[in-house]
């Protein structure tokens, strides 16, 4: 028997939430990056699940692009982190305090 689609949804919701909370509570920007990746991958779970549920391929195509973009995001993110680390030799977001209201 096939697994009902909303099991996948629950899984993705959990993963998404984990990532979301990770962004909220972690201080190391790299971990934050990882958490964002978690969020993106949660959506991928959705896409794949739905595409299998609807028997159409659009979802999987979307996953390809989502993955690519996630990769690009990581690359850009790392670049920014490196520059930041060179500038203030810390990647702790608590220390982003030059700009505040």
């Amino acid at each position: 028997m096939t697994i009902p689609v909303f099991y996948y949804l629950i899984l993705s919701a959990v993963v998404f939430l984990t990532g979301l909370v990770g962004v909220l509570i972690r201080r190391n920007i790299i971990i934050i990056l990882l958490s964002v990746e978690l969020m993106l991958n949660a959506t991928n779970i959705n896409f794949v699940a739905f595409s299998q549920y609807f028997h159409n391929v659009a979802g999987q195509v979307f996953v390809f692009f989502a993955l690519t973009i996630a990769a690009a995001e990581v690359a850009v993110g790392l670049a920014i982190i490196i520059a930041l680390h060179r500038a203030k030799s810390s990647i702790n977001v608590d220390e982003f305090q030059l700009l505040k209201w």
Partner: protein
Amino acid sequence: MGNTEVPVNYLPILLFIGIAIVFGAVSLLAGWLVRPSRPYRAKLNPYESGSPLFSDARVQFPMRYYIIAMLFVIFDIEVIFIIPWAVRFQSLGLLGLVEMLVFIAILLVGLWYAWKKGALEWD
């Protein structure tokens, strides 16, 4: 099951989110209310089965690892597009080939740029 009654089945997600949050809220709130907050250094340290900390869990890697990692990520992800193309190579035919070449070319532009900018120098 039909398309229409699908949504009803998703209600548990909302439920799940709700419960998770409420649970967390209540427990933390309770803790926060009853606990006396006298933090001192040892208390703030993560618990390592009684033994005192000897080093931070995070060890720093040199930056160039990250740079290599970035490049790797970029050129690794292209595979995701190449494999499906390879699988359907026959049916995609010449046009597919050309498109793939363009794709690779664009990646090469990136590589060229990174190279010229000295991202590949090890030190």
